[in-house]
Structures are given as C-alpha cells and as structure tokens.
C-alpha cells in the first residue's frame, strides 16, 4: 500500500468529505483510515448513497398501507401486494449527471440500473417508464443531449426486452446543461419469491456474478454528489459507465432461475459504489460481516488497484450470498447462460466488512456503521426571495386573449405539450405482449399474466391483473410554489390513473433539486416533500421507495425544483380500461370539475403554459390543489367508468381545457401515419365572469373532460352531482372541426390542422 | 500477430449512416466530400505466421465476420 497517496486535507476534500466527517470516521473506526478505506467512506457517505442531506426530511413520507410487503428504505425497491399471492415491485431513479456528460450511455445505464434494482428483489421486470427534462429545443446542444438520451434508453430497454410504455418530456431553459433522466421499472413476483439483500448465514459463500470489473464509473456516486461544472464534467469523462443490455438480460434470467432453486440466502446488485456498497449493505442488513478477497474478483483491465476494484461501477454485476453446500447450483446456472462467476468471499459473524487483496487486509470497517451511520444533516431552509415577486403577480398587466385561434395552435406546437411520438416510437412499447394501452393516452395500462411471474405460474386459472402507470411533475408550478406544485403533481398522477380506469395503490418519487447547501433551494425541497406527503396520504398511495438527486445546477443557476412522481394503480376489470380520445360521433362531451378554480385570483393562469408561450412570462401563484376535491373527483370518475357510462376521459393539465379538448379530438392513432379524427362542438357561453384566456387555457386543478353516449349524458351528470362533483355538458362529438363558443366569440379549428402541428412539432425540430 | 479486418457495405447497398455522416460534414463546413461509407473495423490478435493467419481469417471473414450479401471486406496483416 506504499504506493497509495497519503491522506491530506486536500485528498479528503477531493473525496467529497468534510473535515468533520473525516473526524467522525476516525471516531467510528478508532484510528486513521487508509486510502482505500477513505475511498469506501467517500462513496458510502456521498449524498447519492447516504441521503445525508435529506434523510431527515424524507421521514415525512407516508410509507404504510395494508398492501406494503417491503417498504421504503428496507431494500433496493419496495413491494406491494396486488392480490392472489401476486405482488409488484417498482421504483424510479435518476442518472442526471452522467447523461449530461455522455447522454447515450448515461441514459442507457440509468435504465440498466433501475432494472437491476427490480430483479434483485426477485421480480421479473415487465415494464419501464421515464421522465426526461431538457433545455430549450432551439439550442443545438440540447438537441444533441435529447437525441442521445432517447436513443440510449431505447438501446438498453429494447435490447433487454422490456417495454417502455409511458413517460413525460419537458423542455425548459432551467435544464440547460443539466438534463434530468429519471428511469422507472416495475416487476412482478409472487409473495413467496421476494428476495432480500442481506448477508445471512455465517459461513455462507459470497459469489460475484456478471462481467469482469473495469475502471468504468470510478467514484460515480461521488460525481453525482457535486455541482456540474465544466471542470467536473471534464474530469468525469472517465466516470461514465458503458452498459451491456444483452449481458443484463442473461444476468436477470440466470438470477431468477437461481432464486427459484432456493439456494440464495441474499442477493444485491452492484449499482452506485459497486462492490463496496453491495458488500457493506448486505452485511449491515444481515447483522453480519462479510470478508472478500479482491484477487478473486474478475478484472478486465490489468494492474487494477484495490481502490479501483472496490469503487468501480462496471455494470451488470450482482453479489449473491449462497447457502453453504449449494455452490454447484450457481455454477450450473451461470455456466448455462455463459455468464462469468467467481466465489470471492464468505459471510462472517464479526460485523466487519473485511477486504483482502491476495490474502492481505486492505480495508477493515464496521459494516453497519458504514451503511447506516452516515451523518444526518438538517440543512438550513429559507424562503426564497423570488417568491415575493411571484406572489405579487396579478393579471392586470396581461390583456385577455384576443386570438384564441393562434394561441391554441402555438400551445399544441410547444414542445412540452406537443406529441412525444418522436420519442416513444423509438421505444419498443409492445414486447411481452401485455401492453393494453400504448403511449399516447393519459396512462399506460399493462396486463399481468402467468409468464410475467418469474418461472411462470402453474395455476389453472391464473388470476390476471391489470396495472396502470403514470409519471408527472409540472416543475414550473413547483418552482412558483413548491408545496402546491408538488401536491398537484401527485394529484395529476392520480387523475391520469383515474382517467384510465385505475385506482392508485403506490407511489415512487425522484426528487431532482439543486445544491442543498443553498438555504433557498433546501427550502424548496422541504416544501416539496411536505406537498408530496400530503398528496400520497390523500390517495392512500404510500411511497414505496425513490431517489434523491441533488446538486442539479450549472454555472448559470439551479434547475427548477422537479419532484418527479410516478404512480401505479390497479384496474379491477378489463372492461374498465379507458382511453383519452373521443369515440363516436354524437357522444356528449362533459366537463367534470369547476371550469375555473374558485377563489383563484389568477384564474388558473399562474405558472401556466399559456403565460409562458403567449406572454413570455413564468410567474404567478400556480393553481391551488385541493386534495379533497381531487380525491372525490377520482373516485367519482372511477364509479362512472365501472358503471359503463364513460367512453373517454382526459384530464386538464398543461394548456388547460382547450388543449385537453383538442387532444381528445385527435390523439387516437390507428396505425402508421393513420390518426383518427373526431371533432367536437363545444359551448362554454354559459360560463360568465371569466376571462377567455383563463377559461380556455387556465390550469386549475380537479378537471376532467369525459365523453359519454348521448343517452347516458343525463344519468352521468346526475351521478356526478350526487357525488358532489360539479359537472356540465359542454358539447357534442362530431365533425372535422373543434368548435368552441365563448360568451364573447366563436372559434373553430380544423382538427387535422391542429393534429399536424402537435404530431410533427418535435420531429421537425429534430430533423 | 495483429490482424485487421475492414468491413464496408457493398457499393449497391444503401448506406443511410454514410449519407447522414456526409450531410453532417457538409453542414460543418467540410467541402469537397463526394461520398461517405460507414463500415466496421475489427482488430484480432492471432497466433500463426502470415499465410496461416491470412487463410484462417479469410475463411472466418467469409463465413461470419462479414455478410457477403451486403458487405465486402479486406484484410491487413502486420508482419
């Protein structure tokens, strides 16, 4: 070890540790750490691995419900019961900084990482969704990142064989230089197949499976925990890992086969902080110790040092603790799939993580303290100064819309609202033959059948399940009011699920924020967690796990606070699956919810897409989100759907009512180049004392556009009102145009023309 | 010995990658480019003398490394 650098204050700081943290380390181990041990602490105590800046805050999340089998923070991903001995495991994770440096591989390995988190729980990954944010599409550098990220996700997901069924993509200047890539995966398993990442059984052998370790991603976890500057990006070019989806597919099949034999005592993937994290976490969870010898770890580059081997983030590797005496199962199965494996150590009873290299000890640390006793910080939170301006914004300076015709066209063409088909046509969204609702509606809907379960399921009449998924976050609203905006993100997800016929059962979140040492940014985080917690509680959809990504800044400023919410729901019956587009001429168009939020002096225009696109203004208090109203709206809609009254349902969000109506007219796609158009005749002239722009484009919450057959309209209106949901018939489906009549004017758009703008916008920008 | 296999799309096969690279070069201000073909380059470390390696590699290039339906190849052997 004489070739290792000696520990200096500079070295400690380069490792992302403070002097106080270093002192704490010395206190814990009772001596000075060596270079290798310093490296281990630096990754385990990085923000990405330890959540030291946010752990205290996250305790506020609701994490319990009768369905929770594995809760948030227990293992790699949470697990919820879905009945009949079946369960789902899901989580969302970010890979923001690597994608900024190398978009293709950064995004690809992000997908790989989240998939591994799911199959390490014993579940077969059956679908993926993602949430992406980029800067302004007119910027060529942004287009390069966008192109790279989407093809990276496509490359990994398609090759691995997981359908990518839903997502969202936002474009906003605040993400320039710091794109967000949040990847979600969901898997299926039976209750008896749940696997845990604990090193149980003293004397059990520890196996390493997967490709050899190289120098990829060295100290990637530490990289994610610092601000992205030109210097850090340059330094970290070697930190971006290259993924191999083919290897991962083989690894998953082999692991699931191995789990079925019962020979596995514990299993953990090697993700952030690679071998270090998996070794110490499994020991900590098992209340045991683990001893490994690095000389036995397969290495791909010559002359790798212990430091490098321990901190490498080479992909597609797993750590498996095997029941003593059953080592042959591992060998047999991994040889069948032609996958490398190596027995690298054993479980001990010392509670220590002992790392040897050719028999010589290079690190000896207490596993539990390393994994669980990172410092917990309570950062200072201070209400940001910019909020004064936001709160004092009024509509006085904004003239009412005099050209709704062109306003709607501009909004539909705006990349954040425009169709994302340029993206999702690159993703295989149908592999596994389970996708019931493809990308393009409010939520994705998939079915779970016997072969979704690892090893298949032998039951005669397999109880098939139907799951809906949505991911949302209006970060502009969050920026302007972190509490309301975050609450609303949860409500929007729930609305999207309700529109598809599902009731929410669980949530996962990816908190993407700036530097936590900045009190104003930390305040955003705190308020956001408060809003998310209330939202998830209101919908009985506990947080089962998630991810925090901090330090999302660049030299020009912080990103808009972006707490991405992904929600999963259950559809009780195939007949309840609902899509967002109008179905038949003559159907009634009904608006559920107040047209404009009561008591909102900005009439839903605060923070709206309309203000940004038409008035170049990102300001004003966003619409308030009343969870009681949202909850009632959701259950009412679900009841109507289950009573077979609803033919289409689409909630109002960015762009407001006009955009929701337009999308209902043209979003159905029958096949390549073949959209289906159904216009509508809408009369809003009953609605008085409201500005036109607010009525058409305001983003008040709690509103859903539904359509029913003509004869069911009255019954539907009555039922809704009985449930306390405002409801009015606003029009009839039919014709080639979307016609909207307001008190002060009548407007008509050719549906085909609107569709053209909406469908081709992003494709044109990327040509 | 280090052997190099250079694989290119056959002349009559459409090469959209090549076309795209050509357009990009022109857009970047690179003048005078009349054609771009994008192929594959494989380096193989192999035992044997010049003739042995050439014979073996040709066999595997014909059978596997290149697809004669759509690709041509040439070998370069370092002495």
């Amino acid at each position, binding site marked *: 070890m004489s070739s290792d650098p000696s520990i200096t204050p500079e070295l400690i700081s380069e490792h992302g540790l403070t002097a106080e943290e270093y002192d704490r380390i010395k206190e814990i181990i009772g001596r000075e750490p060596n270079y290798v041990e310093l490296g281990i602490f630096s990754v385990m105590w990085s923000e990405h691995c330890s959540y030291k800046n946010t752990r205290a805050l996250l305790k506020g999340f609701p994490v319990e419900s009768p369905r929770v089998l594995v809760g948030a923070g227990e293992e790699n991903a949470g697990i919820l019961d879905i009945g009949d001995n079946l369960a789902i495991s899901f989580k969302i994770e970010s890979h923001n900084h690597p994608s900024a440096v190398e978009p293709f591989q950064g995004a690809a390995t992000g997908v790989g990482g989240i998939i591994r988190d799911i199959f390490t729980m014993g579940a077969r990954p059956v679908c993926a969704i993602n949430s992406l944010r980029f800067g302004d599409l007119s910027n060529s550098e942004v287009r390069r990142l966008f192109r790279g990220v989407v093809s990276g996700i496509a490359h990994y997901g398609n*090759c691995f064989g997981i359908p990518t069924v839903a997502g969202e993509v936002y474009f906003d200047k605040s993400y320039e230089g710091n794109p967000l890539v949040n990847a979600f995966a969901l898997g299926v398993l039976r209750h008896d197949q749940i696997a845990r990442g604990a090193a149980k059984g003293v004397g059990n052998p520890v196996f390493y499976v997967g490709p050899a370790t190289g120098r990829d991603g060295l100290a990637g976890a530490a990289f994610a925990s610092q601000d992205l500057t030109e210097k850090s990006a340059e330094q970290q070019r070697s930190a971006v890992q290259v993924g191999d989806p*083919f290897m991962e597919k083989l690894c998953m099949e082999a692991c699931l086969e191995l789990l079925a034999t019962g020979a596995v005592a514990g299993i953990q993937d090697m993700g952030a902080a690679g071998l270090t994290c998996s070794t110490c976490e499994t020991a900590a969870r098992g209340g045991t110790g683990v001893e490994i010898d690095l000389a036995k770890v397969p290495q791909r580059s010559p002359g790798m040092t212990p430091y490098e081997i321990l901190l490498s983030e080479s992909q597609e590797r797993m750590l498996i603790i095997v029941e003593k005496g059953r080592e042959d199962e591992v060998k047999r199965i991994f040889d069948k799939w032609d996958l490398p494996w190596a027995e690298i150590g054993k479980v001990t009873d010392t509670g220590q993580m002992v790392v040897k290299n050719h028999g010589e000890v290079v690190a000896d640390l207490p596993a539990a303290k390393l994994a669980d006793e990172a410092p917990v910080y309570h950062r200072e939170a201070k209400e940001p100064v910019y909020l004064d301006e936001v709160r004092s914004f009024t509509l006085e300076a904004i003239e009412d819309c005099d050209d709704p015709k062109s306003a709607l066209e501009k909004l539909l063409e705006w990349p954040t609202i425009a169709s994302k088909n340029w993206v999702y046509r690159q993703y295989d969204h149908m592999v596994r033959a389970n996708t019931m609702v493809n990308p393009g509606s409010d939520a994705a809907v998939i079915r779970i059948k016997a072969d979704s379960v690892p090893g298949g399921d032998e039951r005669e009449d397999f109880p098939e399940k139907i799951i809906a998924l949505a991911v949302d976050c209006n970060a502009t609203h969050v920026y302007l009011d972190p509490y309301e905006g975050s609450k609303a993100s949860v409500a929007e997800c729930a609305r999207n699920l309700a529109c598809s016929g599902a009731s929410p059962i669980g949530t996962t979140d990816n908190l993407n924020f700036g530097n936590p040492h900045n009190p104003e940014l930390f305040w955003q985080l705190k308020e956001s967690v408060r809003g998310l917690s209330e939202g998830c509680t209101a919908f009985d959809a506990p947080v089962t796990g998630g991810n925090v990504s901090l330090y999302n800044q660049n030299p020009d400023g912080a990103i808009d606070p972006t707490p991405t919410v992904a929600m999963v729901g259950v559809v009780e019956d195939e007949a309840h699956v609902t899509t967002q587009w109008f179905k038949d001429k003559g159907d009634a168009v009904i608006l559920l919810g107040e047209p404009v939020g009561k008591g909102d002096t900005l009439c839903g225009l605060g923070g709206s897409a309309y203000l940004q696109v038409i008035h170049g203004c990102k300001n004003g208090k966003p619409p308030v989100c009343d969870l009681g109203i949202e909850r009632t709206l959701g259950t009412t809609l679900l009841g109507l759907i289950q009573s077979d009254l609803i033919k289409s349902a689409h909630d109002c969000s960015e762009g407001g009512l006009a955009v929701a109506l337009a999308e209902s007219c043209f979003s159905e796609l029958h096949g390549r*180049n073949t959209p289906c158009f159904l216009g509508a005749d809408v009369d809003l002239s009953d609605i008085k004392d409201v500005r036109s722009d607010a009525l058409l484009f305001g983003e008040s919450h709690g509103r859903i556009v539904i359509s029913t057959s003509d004869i069911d309209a009255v019954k539907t209106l009555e039922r809704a009102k009985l449930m306390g949901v405002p409801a009015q018939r606003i029009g009839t489906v039919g014709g080639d145009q979307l016609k909207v009549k307001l008190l002060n004017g009548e407007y008509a758009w050719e549906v085909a023309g609107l569709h053209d703008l909406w469908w081709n916008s992003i494709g044109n920008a990327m040509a | 010995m280090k052997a190099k296999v250079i694989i290119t799309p056959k002349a009559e096969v459409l090469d959209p990658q090549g076309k795209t690279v050509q357009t990009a070069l022109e857009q970047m201000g690179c003048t005078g480019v009349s054609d771009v073909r994008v192929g594959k380059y494989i380096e193989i470390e192999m035992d044997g003398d010049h003739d042995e390696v050439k014979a073996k590699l040709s066999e595997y290039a014909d059978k596997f490394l290149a697809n004669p*339906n759509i690709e041509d190849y040439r070998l370069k052997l370092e002495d």
Partner: protein
Amino acid sequence: MNFAVLQFPGSNCDQDCAHVLRNVMGYPTRLLWHKENNVGDADAVVVPGGFSYGDYLRTGSIARFSPVMGAVKEFADNGGFVLGICNGFQILCEAGLLPGALIRNRSLQFRCEHVYLKVATYDSPFTSQIPEGKLMRIPIAHGEGNYFCDANTLDEIEANDRILFQYADREGDITDHANPNGSLKNIAGICNAERNVAGMMPHPERAAESALNEKDGRLVFESLIQSLNPASTTA
C-alpha cells in the same frame, strides 16, 4: 400437433410466441434452448424476435451458428415449417435459409408502431387462412428491418410469388410513405422457394388477442395450423 419456439441468449419474444401458440391457439408448445441439436417431434418451429447475442456484429450473425440452427436447417430441408419473426427473420437470412439480409432502418432509428400489411400471396402455409383482400394491422418493433437483396435475387423472389407481405397504407396502397424502414419493394415478409420457410419483420404474436384489441396476427398462426392439419380446429 405441437410447436417448438427457439430460445437464444437475448431472445425476448420467445415467451410471447409460446404464449400465443399454447394458450391462445391451444397447442402444446415448448421452448427449445439454442444448445439443443434436434427439434424433437415438433411439427413446426418458430424463431422468435429479440436481440439474440445483443445483435452484436450483425443482427442474427452469431445465433445462426448455434447447434439448434443445424437441426432447424435439417428440419426445413425435410419440408418442416419454419417461421422466423423479426430477429427470427434476421437469423434465417444469416443462416441462408432465406435469401437477402435485413439492414438498418433508413431513418437510423428503432421504430415501434402498428403498420398495415398487404398480403402478396395466399399461396403459402403462413397466409392461406387470411381472408382475400384483408389489410392486416400488425405491430413492428425493430431497428434493422430494412430488407435488402441483390437485383437477381429480387427478380427471383418476385417471379416466384415469394413475397408474403408488403407494407401498405390504410387504403392498401404500397407507397414509400407507408414503408417504415426502407425495405426493397416494401417487403415485410418472404418465403423460400419450397414455401416451407418464412420470415416476417412484423410481430403476429403481439396481435393475436382481443384483450390487447388485436386480432390480425392470429391469422398467420391459423394458416400455419391449418396447413399442418387441414382437419384441425383452434381454441
């Protein structure tokens, strides 16, 4: 009657094909691992989609050397029915059981969407049960689905009525706009000279169930089943 679905490292649609044959069409089906060297008593073999060997080097280039492909070739030489879907089509071309090759989509992007297929010939065990004039709606999902062969081969294929499916628009017209990947003559599927081996890029197994609002893909499997046993019925 029973079926075999091949399974290579990296196959993704093997389960989907097996599910349709076994649970939807109602026939015993087993998965055949790539290291096996005979197809057993299977009456027909399906080579499924996916990314065998990661599509490394060229798609299908490594899978075609698997021991099981030797058995499939023998089975085909003896008149057995073989259907290659997507990656399966690519593997059959690399293996020489079908002419030509599938190269990268001209858009250079992976493309997943429903396409319309015009049936070019009903004279094959893979299309015989498709109602005359029916325009099929079936999903594609591929990055390398662009069918290419030299001029002589193309003449031969056309002259012998060996194109099975062509990409068309909603009106059934074979146009360039309807072509999702640049394939010569909008070719989506072909068969060999003996008409017992076929390859198609679209995924009929993804379009065989009403639960997914699909039904056209079933017709390909029904054709196969009917051709194996004219007296058979399907589930």
